[in-house]
């Protein structure tokens, strides 16, 4: 067990940022903390890193209680902050060298690790650049390089892809998977469900400081009643036509909004054929049509009644 959190409670006055939070992270996992802004992800991370004092609960890292002065544990942890935290007075190389130097004392070893981090994050062409000259994506990559240069066993990433372009995001996500392949355990927080679906082996969904669901993405999707969502572009539909669709087996809801017909089924993943047949039978004119399996947003929606996307930045 790399990280074990039990009954963590952290309050800011009347607000409960972590409400009896319990979870564990196994070695070699990419563990995702998914939740809207203000759900307590960063609070949980800061408590794990001993940056925050918490009201109650226990946190263990590598089987030992997490303490601010346990520097042996800290040596094996890499942190990538939500906000880019680098020195604007130092170049890309100097920044990575500084943060690596906090962990690694040997000059030659440090030099090697810094070069590897630069290579890993694709910053080789920018090593002499000052941060103010870098784009948002490159800055994020520098932020990651500073956190992982010392080759930690546990990497904690707090929303490392906020406000960057899709190309940079993909590059970063590929890098995280590569880190994981190299043996690092990763805790990854985000409010982008696509990211956790893409890279996380296990996911914890958080809301209002509580863990509302934990499991693999498949396990999470199994938890809800929604089996398939079919979206059809229509050119007008009558009540009787809608009722005919509702009468189909497994169909739980039919809604039409802005000429888009959304048909949700409770079970099964092959309802499309039956829906098409029904539409032909009842003369429903349609254009584009596509079918989706449930997403984590659907999981969040069903559990909390809120849309995860609406909560994001």
């Amino acid at each position, binding site marked *: 067990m790399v990280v074990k959190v039990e009954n963590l409670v952290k309050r800011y006055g009347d607000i409960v940022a972590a409400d009896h939070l319990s979870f564990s992270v196994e070695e070699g996992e990419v563990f995702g903390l998914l939740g809207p802004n203000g759900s307590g992800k960063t609070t949980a991370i800061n408590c794990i890193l001993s940056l925050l004092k918490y009201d109650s609960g226990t946190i263990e890292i590598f089987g030992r209680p997490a303490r601010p002065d346990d520097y*042996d544990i800290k040596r094996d942890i890499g*942190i990538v902050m939500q906000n880019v935290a*680098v*020195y604007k*007075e130092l170049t890309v190389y*100097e920044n990575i060298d500084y943060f690596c*130097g*906090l*962990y690694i004392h040997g000059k030659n070893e440090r030099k090697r690790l810094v070069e590897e981090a630069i290579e890993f994050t694709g910053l080789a062409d920018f090593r002499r650049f000052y941060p103010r000259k870098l784009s948002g994506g490159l800055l994020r990559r520098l932020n990651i390089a500073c956190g992982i240069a010392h080759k930690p066993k546990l990497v904690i990433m707090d929303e490392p892809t906020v406000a960057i372009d899709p190309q940079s995001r993909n590059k970063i996500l590929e890098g995280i998977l590569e880190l994981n392949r190299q043996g690092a355990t990763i805790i990854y927080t985000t409010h982008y469900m696509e990211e956790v679906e893409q890279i996380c082996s296990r996911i914890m969904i958080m809301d209002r400081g509580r863990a509302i669901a934990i499991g693999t993405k498949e396990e999470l999707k199994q938890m809800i009643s929604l089996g398939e969502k079919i979206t059809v572009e229509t050119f007008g539909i009558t009540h009787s036509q809608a009722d005919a669709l509702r009468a189909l087996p497994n169909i739980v809801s039919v809604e039409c909004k802005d000429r888009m017909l959304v048909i949700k089924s409770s079970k099964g993943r092959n309802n499309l054929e039956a829906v098409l047949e029904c539409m032909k039978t009842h003369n429903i004119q349609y254009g584009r049509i596509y079918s989706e399996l449930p997403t984590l947003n659907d999981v969040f929606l069903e559990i909390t009644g809120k849309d995860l996307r609406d909560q994001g930045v």
Partner: protein
Amino acid sequence: MQVFKLCMKIARKNMPLMMIYLVVFLVVSLVMTSSLAGEQKVEEPFTRVKSKMAFINEENSPLVEGLREELSKIAEFVELPDETEALQDALFFRKVTYILRVPEGFTGKFMSGEDVQLEKTIIPDSAGNVYIDLSIDKYLNAARLYIKNIGGITQESLVSRLQEDFSLSAPVKMQAPAGRQKDQSYARFFFNYMAYSLLSILILGITAIMLVFNDKGLRMRNACSPVNATSINVQFMLAGAVLTVAAWMIMVMCCLFFNLENALSINTVYFILNSFVFALCGSSLSFLIGNLAKSQDVASAVCNVVTLGFSFISGVFVPQEYLAELVLKIASFTPSYWFVRANNKIGEMTKFDLSSLMEVFSDMLVQVAFAVAFLGIALVAGKKRRYLE
């Protein structure tokens, strides 16, 4: 020593900004050096000047001639016609400041011991005239003494004895030549000016480092590292101390370079000691500003307001003796005032006994008190800031 090295790098990055204040200091020093260099050479400790007087003698006698000779040592005689209007004009137009008339029959009556008086017409409130009066009194009183004690003494013998008496002089040695005082005031200027330039350099340098270390994200990142907080703080303080001492040493060397003549005087030692105490106070103030400022722009603005404000009211740019009492009272709430005050005292010091030094040390102690107060407020402000974050 990663943190220490980082602090030094940040300080180096801000070097151009700090250098501006050093250059300003050097330029002002050069201007002062060239303008004061000429003045120093013509200064003499004491110059004797003679009052201009008219000596109207209505009788010629050895005694009166002796008096004239004695007065010629301190006065310059101007020949005037013995006419009332001409004499009055001479006084009005300051051709003379003193007219002495020896009336007819004066010598005979004086030698016989009768009470006689010389007639004088003077410009009032003239210090030179008092000196002439004293000389006349001295001459005549000495003459009366001889006449009273040596019966039948002749005028020639009397004048001879008086001349012999008045030729005696006591050697006078100046303990504190005014020329040296001038030199110290010159050194005093350079050290006083440090209240502006050194303080500016320290505020800019230390706040630049502080602002970086007060960044929440960076602070958290450092806190996650295996370097313990005490070590980080010690390295940070060490960097601040190195920066303070380096800036102070450069400024002191500049002061000594521009005032080489007095570099080895005892006054200089106290000037340097006082400037070191001020440097400590300055670094403490910088620490406070660094904890309060939220950006480098704010820090620069505060730096200008603080250094210029302190300097104007504390006697750095305008000597304290020209400043109003109210201004000085307000200035006494700034360390610069006590620094300048101590410098002024050191500049005037000729004796280095305990009582003289105690006055200087008490001013230094006030600066130390300021340093402790600034540090205390800075620590509280820093803690509060971190709490709010």
